[in-house]
């Protein structure tokens, strides 16, 4: 997957420029877009067509596993060595509730984290970014600059560069 990258990346000072650029790129059918923003902005999301994250599904799986685990350990452990306490039933529902809740939460959180990581990795592998040190060392994305990376064939370079320029990009870099 980590093949050679060929594409264009540009930085912007203003958000509205960035959004406009993205919209235009979209309309030109460039889908392999990666943006950089210092903070999450819905404007970008809207420009990108409001993609949905699949993280919740992973969470749900985690929660089910947690719940099942709780049921399992409470019953199995109670029956393994039967020690009655205070005439309470050996197996009882109330004792499962807090344990089940906590384990459900615990595992869903772990799964959410794992899911986030995996999904981010998956998307990142799908959308290549430049390998150049200039891109890698560009350190204003987390500060106050917006960036757009478009993966494309060498033939489209000019077209994209024009779009970026049109939207007053600060700098535009071409990478093969």
């Amino acid at each position, binding site marked *: 997957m980590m093949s050679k990258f060929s594409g264009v990346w540009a930085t912007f000072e203003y958000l509205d420029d960035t959004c406009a650029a993205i919209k235009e790129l979209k309309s030109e059918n460039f889908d392999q877009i990666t943006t950089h923003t210092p903070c999450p902005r819905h404007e970008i999301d809207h420009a990108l067509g409001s993609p949905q994250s699949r993280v919740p599904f992973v969470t749900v799986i985690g929660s089910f596993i947690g719940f099942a685990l709780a049921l399992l350990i409470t019953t199995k452990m109670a029956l393994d060595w039967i020690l009655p*306490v*205070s*005439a309470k039933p050996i197996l009882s529902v109330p004792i499962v509730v807090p344990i089940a809740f906590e384990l459900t939460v615990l595992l869903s959180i772990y799964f959410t984290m794992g899911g986030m990581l995996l999904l981010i990795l998956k998307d990142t592998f799908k959308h290549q970014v430049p390998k150049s040190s200039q891109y890698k060392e560009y350190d204003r994305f987390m500060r106050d600059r917006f960036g757009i990376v478009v993966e494309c064939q060498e033939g489209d370079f000019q077209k994209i560069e024009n779009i970026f320029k049109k939207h007053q990009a600060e700098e535009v870099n071409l990478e093969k």
Partner: protein
Amino acid sequence: MKSNISRRNFLKMSAVGGATLAVAGCGSDPIETLFPLHTPPYGYVSGDSIHFATTCQECTAACGLVIRTREGRAIKAEGNPDHPINEGRICLQGQSILQALYSPARATYPSQITNKKSQIISWDKGKQLLADKLKEVKDKKGEILYLGSPRTGTFPTLLKQWINGMGGGTVLELDMKPVNSLKHANRIMFGKQEVPHFALDKAEVLINFGADFLETWLNPVQMTKNYTRMHKFQDGKKGRYIHIAPHISLTGTNADEWLSCPVGHETSIALAISRILLNKDTAGHLTINEKQELKELLSDFSEEKIAQTSGIDKDVLIKLAHNFDRNGRSLAIAGGNCNAGEDTTLLQIAVNILNYVAGNIDKTVVFGADYNFGGANIADLETAVKGMQEGRYQLVIIENVNPVFTLPENSGFKKALKAVPFVVSFSTENDETSELANLHLPTSHFLESWGDGKPRDGVYALQQPVMAKVPAFDTMELGNLILELATLAGLDGFKSKDFHTYLKTAWKKLHQNLGISSPFDKFWKQSRQKGGYFQKFTHSIATLKDEVYKLKFLQPPAKAAGLSLLAVNSNLHNANAKGANRTWLMEIPHPVTQVVWDSWVELHPDTAVRLGIRHGDLVEITSTNGKVNAAAWIFYGIDKNTVAMPAGMGRKVAFPNYKSSHGRSKLLPVVEMDLKIEEKTVGINVMDLLSWRKDTLSGDFVFAGENVEIKPTGEKAYLVTMDGQNRKDIAVPDIEDQAGFGDRSQKNRGFVQTMALGHYEKGHEEDLKKHHLRKRYYTLNRKDKTSFYDPIDVNVSKAVKRAGKETPVYNDPYKWEMFIDLDRCIGCSACVAACYAENNIPVVGKDRANVGREMSWIRIERYFETNKQTGQLETYYTPQMCQQCDNAGCEPVCPVYATYQNPDGLNAMVYNRCVGTRYCSNNCVYKQRRFNWRSYKFPEPLQMQLNPAVSVRSKGVMEKCTFCHHRIKEIKDQAKDKGRNVIDGEIQTACQQACPADAIVFGNILDKNSKTSQIKKKTKRNYKQLPGLNFQPAITYLKKVNHNNRKA
């Protein structure tokens, strides 16, 4: 009882796996060493306990003991059930003899003291030294003074012979208990100088003029047994006990009625009652002459007059007298420290007259028993002291008595002792007197020695060693020492090899005299197994002597300016101060005051308010002889012009020097670098206040009536009481309670429940109705389907079915339950001591008791209630231990199953699983769990007393009463060997075994014929504590039955 005797001399102190070590802390297990026995005694089985019958020599009561030994160590003292006097029970002091046997205060080696320097010497040298001295005395025709503890049986004969052989001298048996007055009174009245048998059990009404017969007076165990027989509730009846005294101790608190009188007024009250009876013309058994003479003798004591002087209402006296007139089924007694004034003998005579007039002589007061109580009288002692000072005695031998401590300073004893050229101590322990001796030859403890005793006519009690000598101590048996000294000093007539042989010879003679048909060997063996040879005594008829009529009874003393001090004995502390260095007796709270590790002075609240003293203040008590500071303990159980202090405190107690932050800044670290055993004085010696006074007729020491002044020092005393320290409550606002007595009632929480005699059935019906109402919310019977949960066995079997596993059987065939009869319980705390001994419970000391770290698994709760009708103070006792609840609070909250419901229905506590969250303790509504706040140290060699069947708990572990489940286990194991179930009564918990009132019954509730089942079926007095919480405890209490005048 399993007794086994022979060859115990071979028992070496080498226990096989003397495993009583701590529940593991961290770190690896150290390698243990296994010492095999050298030669096993016959019938010895490692790991089994062997019981030896012997006789207690703590006092002259000479109760029969059964000592349980494991691997050759004595671990528990119990009463000998075959013994006719104590019937299987012993008192608190008797329980604590093991602490005397393994006392850290015991003398380790023979030593010679020259120029105040103690030097260890060998036994041979020590004996030779003394023998030379004896020879010298014999040649110089000097005299020997032998001060010994009171003994009966063979030894006094030997001693007398020995002293005479040594050129003569005096033998004085030192006993501070005022019993001589009783003997003298009987001599004057009936010509019989003896302690008669008081048949409390045959009386219906008992009037007691201050005798502490449930604590120390005569044989308290026997008295308690008989008292319970009289006072227990049976067939709708129970005896009545009226206490007339200036002070209520434990004995007085058990009375149905307490009539307070000033000190010294008892005689006149007794006489007034006699006079009422005489005038009543029912005393038909008296001859006309007797009547006439007595009437004349008592003419001065009209009820009106006495009512005026004593403050007891005339009607009360008349009612009392009428009540007392039971045709020989009543009894009046007097005695003890509380009555020990200068006219004690007259009081005893007055009581005798009362008994005589009521026709009790030969019915409830039976002569012929000739109980052996008491020692030398003070007059003889005075002579001896004088003799010592004047140089009459060349040699003084002191054996196991502590006159320097127990006699007041102004007796001059200490000074006189210094004037004696050579003082030898034979005492087992190092004490204040042995310190002053020139030579200390420590004798063995009586549990290590041979001996015998004759507590009363017809009882020949044998005392045999129950174990080899405690290895830490190089001692010699007293008898052997005396015999060897005789040989060394060149005395004739002491042929016996050792005292054992001597004793056997004496018993051979006894065997002949008694005319027993069986051969001597069999007799000897049986005696050793049973603890002696027991017969009934022959009654002798008592007739009134004319001497009585010549007596002159004094009018009651006029009201004194100051306060009268009573130095009272209790079952924990007595004037002989023998147990005063035993930590159990310090740690067990005094039943009435609940004070531990301290002396106190009891004051009436009115007096306290008058003097500006509040409860717990440090007060200064001044008499003509001295001045001491003690904590004020204020309650209504004492006359307004009287104060009381415990006798026999103030000795040095060896105890680990656990550090405490008491009295320091709480920010400064307190760190314990090393733990040493230190000797610390506990309490104050009341003798410092008393004068050297004696009863004129009998020579008993005067304990009552010393004139003292009390004033506050302005400081708070460091007084530790175990009754819940800060018990201010809304019921008694502090403003009204200026003395700070507080509300020490049970706040209607129903721990002790009572019912009135007569309508008790009706009362219980009402209670049952209440129970019935409660049933709507929960049920007492879990088989009932209204219960929230299934019964435990159903629960378990359901779970087992699901698990598809083994089938543990629940509640089959045993479920242990206990019944505690509060009508019988007198609060004596013998059970507490037994529990300490049985379960390896550590002693924590004053500082720790102060911060709630006491470890006792059973406590006697004492509640003071005020009778709403009479306004009188009423005291209730209830023994509280783990209630072994079915729906226990402790179990479900333990996160690691360290406590759970065991198949026998006990709340098991697995020490080694415990991590110490202490939630169980919080959730125990009876507050019966104890936590090991630290690893406690058992001062050497006290650790030898530890019971190997019970783990010693280490720091961080919760513990509690287990119903002595190691005993249950042991008996179950034995039953299993025999292929049967446990028979009812086979298992006795330690507390049950110790209870002289038989208040505790323990057994299997699933056995239809067991005693517990029977009680459950029959009784109408049963109740459980805190039933509303539905913990379903396994301990059922039986309500106390009160006479009508008490709160119902």
